[in-house]
C-alpha cells in the first residue's frame, strides 16, 4: 500500500514534469507576444522591453522553464512596483494580467468548480444508476427501451444546446428559477443550491446517460454470474439478490469511473461554466487562453493533470477497499 502510493507519487511527478515541459514547449511556439497583451493599445518599443524584462520573457526559454520549476519547489519573487511580491512555494507562476499568483487564482475558483462537480455527481449517480438498474431488471422490455432511448438522446445533445434550452425554459419562459448566479455555500446554502440546480442538471443529464448504460450492462453481467445463481438457489429474496449482491458488483466499476470523472469535470466543465457564467476553473481556462495568459494556462493544465491523476489514484484505492480481491501493483 505505502509502496504503491510511493510509486504512484513518483510516476505522478514524472508525469507532471513531462506535462509541464510539453505545455511550455507548445506555448513558446506562440506567435503572439504576451508582453503586448499586458501592455495594451499603442504600447511602444521601450515599454515593451521593460515589460518583457519584468515578465522574464527576455531570458532564454529553458531558463524560463527552469525558473518555473524552481518556483514550484521554492517560490519566486516578482516586482510589484515599489516592492517585490512573493509567490510562495508551490508557486505555479504569476499572472501578470491579473497580478496574482496562479495558485491563488485557482484557489478562488476551486470552490465553484467543486460545488458544480460534487452536486452534479450526486445527481448523475442517482439518475444514472437507478435508470440503469431499472433498465437491466426490465431488460428487453419497454422500460429498458425508454431508458436506452432517453440516454442516447441525452448523450447526443451537446451540453451547450441542452444547457441553453434548460436555461431558457426554466428561467426565461416558466420563471420557475432565477437565472443562476454563483452564491458561495458559506454565504447562503439554500441560494447556493438553488442557483446551481440548472448547471447541475445540465451536466448530470449528459453524464447520467453514460452511467445508465454502464450500470445496465454491468448489472446484466453481474446477474448472470455464478454467485448470483447460488444466492437464488438458496432462496434469497429477489430484492435482496438485486439490491445487495448484484448492485455491489455493478457499482464497483462505477465507483472507479466516478472518481475519474470527478477529477476530469472538476477542471473541465468549460462548456457548463461558460454557459452559466460560473466563475470556476473551466471558465478560467477559457478566459486565460483567450487572453493568452500563459502562466495561468500552464498552471491550470498542471493542476488539471494533477487533479485527474489524484482522482485516478483515489479511484484505485477505493476500488481496493471495495473489492478486497484487488491487489495494488
Amino acid at each position, binding site marked *: 500500500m505505502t*509502496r504503491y502510493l510511493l510509486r504512484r507519487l513518483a510516476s505522478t511527478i514524472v508525469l507532471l514534469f513531462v506535462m509541464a515541459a510539453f505545455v511550455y514547449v507548445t506555448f513558446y511556439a506562440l506567435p503572439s507576444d504576451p508582453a503586448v497583451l499586458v501592455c495594451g493599445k499603442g504600447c511602444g518599443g521601450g515599454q515593451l522591453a521593460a515589460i518583457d524584462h519584468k515578465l522574464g520573457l527576455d531570458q532564454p526559454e529553458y531558463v524560463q522553464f527552469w525558473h518555473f520549476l524552481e518556483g514550484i519547489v521554492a517560490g519566486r519573487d516578482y516586482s510589484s512596483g515599489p516592492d517585490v511580491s512573493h509567490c510562495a512555494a508551490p508557486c505555479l507562476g504569476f499572472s501578470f494580467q491579473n497580478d496574482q499568483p496562479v495558485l491563488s487564482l485557482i484557489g478562488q475558483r476551486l470552490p465553484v468548480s467543486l460545488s458544480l462537480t460534487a452536486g452534479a455527481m450526486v445527481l448523475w449517480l442517482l439518475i444514472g444508476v437507478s435508470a440503469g438498474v431499472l433498465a437491466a431488471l426490465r431488460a428487453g422490455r419497454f422500460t429498458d427501451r425508454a431508458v436506452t432511448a432517453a440516454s442516447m438522446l441525452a448523450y447526443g445533445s451537446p451540453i451547450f444546446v441542452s444547457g441553453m434550452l434548460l436555461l431558457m425554459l426554466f428561467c426565461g419562459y416558466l420563471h420557475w428559477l432565477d437565472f443562476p448566479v454563483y452564491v458561495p455555500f458559506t454565504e447562503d446554502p439554500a441560494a447556493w443550491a438553488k442557483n446551481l440546480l440548472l448547471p447541475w442538471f445540465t451536466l448530470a443529464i449528459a453524464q447520467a446517460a453514460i452511467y445508465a448504460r454502464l450500470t445496465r450492462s454491468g448489472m446484466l453481467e453481474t446477474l448472470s*454470474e*455464478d*454467485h*448470483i*445463481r*447460488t*444466492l*437464488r*438457489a*438458496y*432462496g*434469497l*429474496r*429477489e430484492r*435482496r439478490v438485486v439490491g445487495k*449482491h448484484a448492485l*455491489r*458488483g455493478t457499482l*464497483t466499476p462505477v465507483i472507479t469511473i466516478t472518481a475519474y470523472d470527478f477529477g476530469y469535470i472538476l477542471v473541465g466543465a468549460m462548456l457548463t461554466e461558460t454557459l452559466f457564467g460560473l466563475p470556476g476553473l473551466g471558465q478560467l481556462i477559457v478566459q486565460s487562453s483567450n487572453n493568452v495568459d500563459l502562466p495561468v494556462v500552464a498552471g491550470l493544465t498542471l493542476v488539471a493533470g494533477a487533479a485527474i491523476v489524484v482522482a485516478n489514484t483515489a479511484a484505485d484505492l477505493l476500488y481496493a477497499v*471495495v*473489492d*478486497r*480481491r484487488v*491487489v*495494488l*501493483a
Partner: protein
Amino acid sequence: MSEPSERPVLTVRDLTVEFPGDGDTALRAVDGVSFELGAGGALGIVGESGSGKSTTALALLGLHRHSSARVSGEILLGDDDVNALGDEAVRRLRGRRAAMIFQDPMSALDPYYRIGDQISEVYRTHTGAGRRAAWAKAVEVLDRVGIPDAARLARARPHEFSGGMRQRALIAMALACEPRILVADEPTSALDVTVQAQILDLIDELRAETGMALLLVTHDLGVVSRSVERVLVMRDGRAVEQGPVGEVLKAPAEPYTRALLDAVPRLDGPVRERRTPGEPLLTVTGLTREFRRPGGGLRREVMRAVDDVSLEVRRGETLGVVGESGSGKTTLARMIVRLLEPTHGSIVFAGQDVTRLPERGLRAVRRDLQMVFQDPVSSLNPRRTVGDSIADPLRVHGTGDREALRTARELMERVGLDASRHDRYPHEFSGGQRQRMGIARALSLRPKLLVCDEPVSALDVSTQAQILELLGDLQEEYDLTIVFVSHDLAVVRQVSDRVAVMHDGELVELADAADLYGSPRHEYTRRLLAAVLAPV
C-alpha cells in the same frame, strides 16, 4: 449410510427442458427424464458432456425460471410441484427443502461479502433468526464441515479460501437450513484427487448424520461408484439406463454405458509395453523456475514453481508427469519447450544446450520441439481457419503457401478430421476435434519431441480415449518422443513408459510405470494413488 425409505423426497416425471435456438430451432437439452429419490437415498446422474445433467439439476430447484428455457413435466419435492408453484413458494423451498452445490466453487460465492455473512444471510432468510443467532449457526456449520478455526475464518472473504475450503463453505451453506435433499452438480470436478476424496467423505458423513438425500451429478464414474446407491445414465437429454450402481456399472445393459465404462482409464488395467529406450534426447539438470508473488511487502516474496528438477527423456519413450494442481507441471513443460525462461538449471536437447538460446537461435530447434496444449479453446486462434492454423508453422519455416495447405489437409486426415473443412473456424468444431487440430499443428513440422500438457483433461472420457489412442499411433508413425503431463494418474499410467511425480515444484519420484504404480516408494505418491477412485 441409511437405506432408502418408502416415501420419495423427490419425484421427477417426464421432465423436458428446451432452449430456444438462434432461429426456430429449439434445443431439447432434457428429454422426458423420470426418476425418484427416496428419503436418505443417493442417486447419481452420469453421462457425457452436454448430455443434460446440469440442466436437469437446475430444473429441480426451479432455477430455469425467468430464463429462456421452457420446462415441462412434473418435479415433486415432497408434495410440492416445483413446476406448478408460484415464484415465492418456490423460493421458500430452495435451500430449505432442497439445497444445491455447484461445480466451480471459485465463482459460486459472492466475492464481496464475508463467508459467515453469506451463510447467515441464507439461514436468516429461511428461519427469521436474529443476526447473532445466524452468525453462531454459520460458525457452527463451518466448523461441522471441517473448516479449521471456523470462528475466525467465518470472517474471511471467498478469495482467501482454497478451492476445497470454498466447496466446504458451500456445503456448510447447504447444511445451515437442514434440507431434505442435497443436489450436487459436479462438486469435485474442479478439485484435486486428494481434496476430492475429503469432500466426498464429508458428504457421506453428513448424509449419515442428518439423513438427507443426495442427488449427485458427475461425469466421473469413479465418483459415482463410490458415493451413490442408484445411478441414472444420460445421453443427449434422455435417460438411457437406470438402476443400482453395482448392477449398472458391472453389467451395463446399454452399449452406451458399456462404452462409457470402457473408455475410463483404470489403475488396474494393463500397463503399456515398455519400449527399448534410445539415447537421451532431452536432459534437464537442476531446472528451477521462480515467480514473484504479486503484492506483498517491500521485499517481494519469491515462490519456486519448479524446484531443482533433473530428468532425462530418451528417444522414443513417453515420460509421464503427474502431480496435483499447482505442483509445477505446466511450468516444467513450458520450460522444456522454452516458452518460459528457467531461472536456474540447464536444458540440453539433442546434444545442444538450449537453455540460454535467444529467440532467433531457437527457431531451428523449435522444428524438433513442439507442444500440445490443455485447453482446446485457447490453443487455436478463433480468427484463423483451422487449415491456416495447421499450415502456419510450415509457412513460417518457408514452405510455400499451397504446399503448406496441402500438408495441413493431409495432417487433418491423419488425425481423423474431415480435410474438406479446412477453411472453417475453430468454433465450428467440438473440443475433441479441436484437440486433434492442436496435435496436427504440432506434428506439421515433424518434431522429435512432443510435449503434451494435459491434452485430454478438458475432454470427456470417450473423447479422451480416442485422443490417447491417436497419440499412441502417431508416436509409432512419426517416431515421437513424448512428455505427457497430466493430473490424472490413471491416464498417465496408460500411456507412459516412465512416470515422474511432482509435488510443490519438486520431483518426488521418477520410475518405470509398472514400478511406480505397483510399489510406490514416496509417501506422497502413495497418498495420491490411494485417493484415486475407480468405477466399481
